């Protein structure tokens, strides 16, 4: 079975002559988007690496202060969710709409679980007096140079990632419901590609802020 055979396609937009041409244009745009996202997060990774070389001790304190177990559980949540959405694409190709919809909605649920765990971590940080920009009582007790920079970069990177997870969860919910009902005319591939990117970004955020 070909990749798109299982899906009922919408009519082409005016600027395209064939469905294949339209689908390919979407893929190219998605490729450029994924590349730009990778570049955005790499710039943050590069900042962390550069500042870590300036203040290795402060960054070690910051990483040790993070809850390794919660970060690791979130890693497992995203890896399982990525597997589920990949299976959803396979199910849609096989024209098993109900299974594809259920798998997509399960992925969205795991996205919510990830966000709940992340917000739990943030709440704990705020309770300890850790805020972006080096504000809060934590920094009076730990006056080491570089700690405010570590926590600012932590909130920037994980916050930006959480925004991506939120958007992805919304997309997966919307598409999952439509696939389940059999009313989705597009392939799930684009949404799945976006979710895999969110997963890959966390694959690198995890060692940087929890394991290093």
């Amino acid at each position, binding site marked *: 079975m070909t990749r798109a055979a299982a899906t009922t396609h919408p009519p082409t937009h005016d600027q395209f002559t064939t469905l294949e041409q339209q689908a390919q244009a979407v893929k190219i745009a998605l490729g450029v988007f994924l590349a730009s996202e990778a*570049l955005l997060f*790499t710039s943050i990774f590069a900042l962390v690496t550069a500042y870590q070389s300036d203040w290795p001790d402060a960054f070690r304190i910051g990483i040790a202060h993070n809850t390794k177990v919660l970060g690791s559980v979130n890693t497992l949540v995203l890896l399982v969710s990525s597997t589920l959405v990949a299976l959803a694409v396979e199910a849609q190709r096989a024209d098993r709409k109900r299974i594809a919809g259920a798998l997509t909605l399960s992925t969205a649920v795991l996205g919510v679980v990830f966000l709940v765990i992340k917000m739990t971590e943030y709440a704990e940080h705020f309770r300890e007096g850790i805020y972006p920009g080096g504000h809060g009582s934590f920094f009076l007790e730990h006056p080491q140079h570089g700690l405010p920079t570590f926590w600012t970069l932590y909130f920037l990177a994980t916050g930006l990632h959480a925004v991506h997870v939120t958007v992805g969860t919304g997309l997966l919910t919307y598409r999952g419901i439509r696939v389940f009902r059999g009313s989705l005319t597009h392939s799930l591939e684009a949404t*799945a590609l976006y979710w895999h990117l969110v997963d890959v970004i966390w694959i690198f955020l995890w060692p940087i802020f929890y394991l290093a």
Partner: protein
Amino acid sequence: MTGVRTKLVSGTALIALAIASFAFSYLHLGRGSIGIAFLIAGLKTLLVGVFFMEIGRERASFKLALLAGVLLVAALLGFVASDVRLRGAPPLPPPVTQAAPAV
């Protein structure tokens, strides 16, 4: 469906690699631990890219867009790494705060 089996095996491998990364973080290997963590992260990214995103099955135009991103990422990391490695001390010392003269 062989595709389903491939995805299940890939997902299991990803979880196994994550558990390995977690275990290595307790071995206290110093600077080596971050190297191992990034090596495992690279392997996981490869698995996601090849088996979940199926980049190998995409057309050349899609691969070209991703390749452009990879090259730009490599250039960015290369320039940052060279800057961190080669830059000298800051050109100016930090400002010294002085008490205001008594009037």
